C-alpha cells in the first residue's frame, strides 16, 4: 500500500472534499438527491514505435455530478472527478508523476458552478476546471484517447481558479482567471492564466467560437488568440481550430507560435461507433521545421458501460532531426 502513504494529499483533494461537505447543510434536499455518480475504470496500452517502448496507464476513480436545489430553484451544481492513476514504463513522464512507474490520486475536474443569479448575471464557477479555450471547451476528452492538445498549446488543460460563464439567447461565454499551478491550488513563481471564449450556441449544427489566452505557466509566458468551429452534417463532423500567439521562454524574447487542428469525424446512426481523423500543424519560430501530425482513431460503445478505443498517431514531419513519432494506443473503459 505504498501509494497511499508516499504522497501528501494535495490541496486540491482537501478543497474538493471540504467544499462538498460544506455544501451539504446549505441545501434543502438530501445530498443523495439529484446526485449522479459512476465508478470509472480504464486501462490503456501505448505502443511507442520511435522509442521502442510499451507502456500502460491504469485509472480507477469516481465521477460525480450533483445539482444543488432550494425549495423551488436550482442553486448550482458540482462536478467532482477523483482518480487513482498508475503508470507503468511511461515515457516521457507526465508532470503529475515523479517517475515512469509511479501512481497517484489525480483530480480531473472538481468545481462548483453557481447558477442562481439573475438572468443578466453570469454563473460563477470555482475549482479545478478545463480552461475555456478552443474546441476542448465543448467536447469531453477526459479519460479518452481523443485529444485537442489544449495542454500542449496553453501549458495546461485544467487549472484552479474562478470562471464567469453564461448561455444567453444567441451565444455562450466563459471567462476565467486561474492560478497557473495546474494540479496545484497555488500560484507558482508568479504563474497565472486569463482565458476567455465566446461562441455561438453549442447545440447548433454550426458552432463558431473565438478564444483568448494570456498567462504564465511553468515559467513560460504565453499569449494566444484562436478561432474554432464545429460543423455537423448528417452523421459527419468537420471541426477546426486555428491559434496564433507567442511564447516567452526567456525573459523578453517572445517567439511566434502557430497551431492548426483539422478534424473530420463520423458517427454511426446509433452513436455506438465514432471514427475520427485529425491533422495537426504546429510551428514555433525558434524551431527548425514545423511539426505535422496525423491522428486516426475510433471508439466503439459495446454497451452503455463499456467502451473500447483505438488510436494511432504518426508524425509526418518533425520540428528537429529526431526520429519521427509513431504511437498506437488501445484503451478499454468501463463505467459502473
Amino acid at each position, binding site marked *: 500500500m505504498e501509494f497511499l502513504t508516499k504522497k501528501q494529499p494535495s490541496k486540491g483533494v482537501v478543497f474538493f472534499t471540504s467544499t462538498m461537505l460544506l455544501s451539504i447543510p446549505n441545501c434543502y434536499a438530501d445530498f443523495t438527491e439529484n446526485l449522479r455518480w459512476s465508478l470509472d475504470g480504464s486501462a490503456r496500452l501505448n505502443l511507442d514505435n520511435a522509442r521502442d517502448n510499451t507502456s500502460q496507464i491504469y485509472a480507477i476513480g469516481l*465521477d460525480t455530478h450533483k445539482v444543488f436545489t432550494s425549495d423551488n430553484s436550482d442553486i448550482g451544481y458540482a462536478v467532482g*472527478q477523483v482518480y487513482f492513476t498508475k503508470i507503468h514504463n511511461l515515457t516521457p513522464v507526465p508532470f503529475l508523476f515523479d517517475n515512469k512507474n509511479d501512481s497517484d490520486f489525480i483530480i480531473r475536474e472538481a468545481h462548483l458552478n453557481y447558477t442562481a443569479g439573475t438572468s443578466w448575471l453570469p454563473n460563477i464557477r470555482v475549482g479545478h476546471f478545463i480552461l475555456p479555450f478552443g474546441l476542448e471547451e465543448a467536447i469531453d476528452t477526459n479519460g479518452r484517447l481523443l485529444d485537442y492538445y489544449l495542454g500542449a498549446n496553453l501549458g495546461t488543460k485544467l487549472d484552479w481558479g474562478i470562471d464567469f460563464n453564461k448561455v*444567453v439567447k444567441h451565444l455562450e461565454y466563459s471567462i476565467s482567471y486561474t492560478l497557473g499551478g495546474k494540479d496545484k491550488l497555488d500560484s507558482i513563481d508568479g504563474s497565472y492564466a486569463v482565458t476567455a471564449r465566446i461562441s455561438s450556441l453549442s*447545440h447548433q449544427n454550426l458552432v463558431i467560437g473565438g478564444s483568448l489566452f494570456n498567462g504564465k505557466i511553468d515559467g513560460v509566458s504565453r499569449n494566444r488568440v484562436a478561432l474554432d468551429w464545429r460543423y455537423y*452534417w448528417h452523421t459527419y463532423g468537420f471541426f477546426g481550430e486555428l491559434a496564433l500567439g507567442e511564447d516567452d521562454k526567456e525573459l523578453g524574447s517572445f517567439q511566434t507560435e502557430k497551431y492548426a487542428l483539422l478534424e473530420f469525424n463520423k458517427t454511426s446512426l*446509433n452513436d455506438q461507433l465514432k471514427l475520427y481523423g485529425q491533422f495537426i500543424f504546429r510551428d514555433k519560430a525558434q524551431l527548425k521545421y514545423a511539426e505535422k501530425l496525423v491522428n486516426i482513431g475510433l471508439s466503439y460503445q459495446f*454497451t*452503455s*458501460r*463499456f467502451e473500447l478505443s483505438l488510436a494511432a498517431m504518426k508524425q509526418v514531419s518533425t520540428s528537429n532531426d529526431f526520429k519521427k513519432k509513431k504511437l498506437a494506443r488501445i484503451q478499454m473503459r468501463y463505467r459502473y
Partner: protein
Amino acid sequence: MNKIISKFIICSLLLVFVTCEATAIAYCSLRDPVAQMLDLYPNKTNQLSIVKTVDADIRAKVQVALPNNDLHFSELGQHTLYVAMDGESLLGYIHVRSEQSDWGLVEIVWAIAKDMTISNFVFQRCRSPKKQLAEQPYFKEIFIGKNYSQLKALLNNDGKTANDNVLEQAKGASDLANVVLRCALKTLLLTEVLWGDDLNQL
C-alpha cells in the same frame, strides 16, 4: 508485448459479456439546455431539476406500453426533468429525450404543460435536411396540445410510424414526423412513470 495485447483483448471480451446498461458519458460534459428553455418558456426566471434513473425495469415498461419500441442506450442512466418556474409559480416541465433516426440521434427538448400535454418543442440536435420544415408551426401543431393517449392514437398498427393524416400534415417531413411522434410518446410516458409522484407534490 504480444502477451500484453492478448490479455487486453481477453479482458475486453470478458467485459463485453458481463456488462449491461449505464451512462456512457463523463458527467463533466453534462449541459443544461439553457437556451432552449428560454425559447420554450420566455418568462422563466428559475428552474428546479429533478434527477431520476431510467433502468432496465423502466425500459421494459416502455416496451410493454409502446410495443415495437425501445429506448436508445443513451436513454438509460440518470436523466433530469426541469420544472420551469416564474419565481414561485410553476410554468411547466422540460424534458430532453433522444430518438434514433436516419440522420443519427435526434435530441428534442420538450415543453410539457401541467396537464401533461405537449405545449411546445425545439430541437437540441437534428441533422436532418428537413429540420427547418419540422420547426414550422403547421408541423408542431400535430403534437402541441395533445396528451399521451391522443398521441398514441396517431400511431399506425406497427406502433412505430405515424398514420396517413399525420404524414400528410407533415408536408414533406414525414420521416421526421415519425421520429418526433415516437419521441413525444416516450417523453410523456417516462415523465409520468418516473417523475409523476414528484410533480404531484409540487
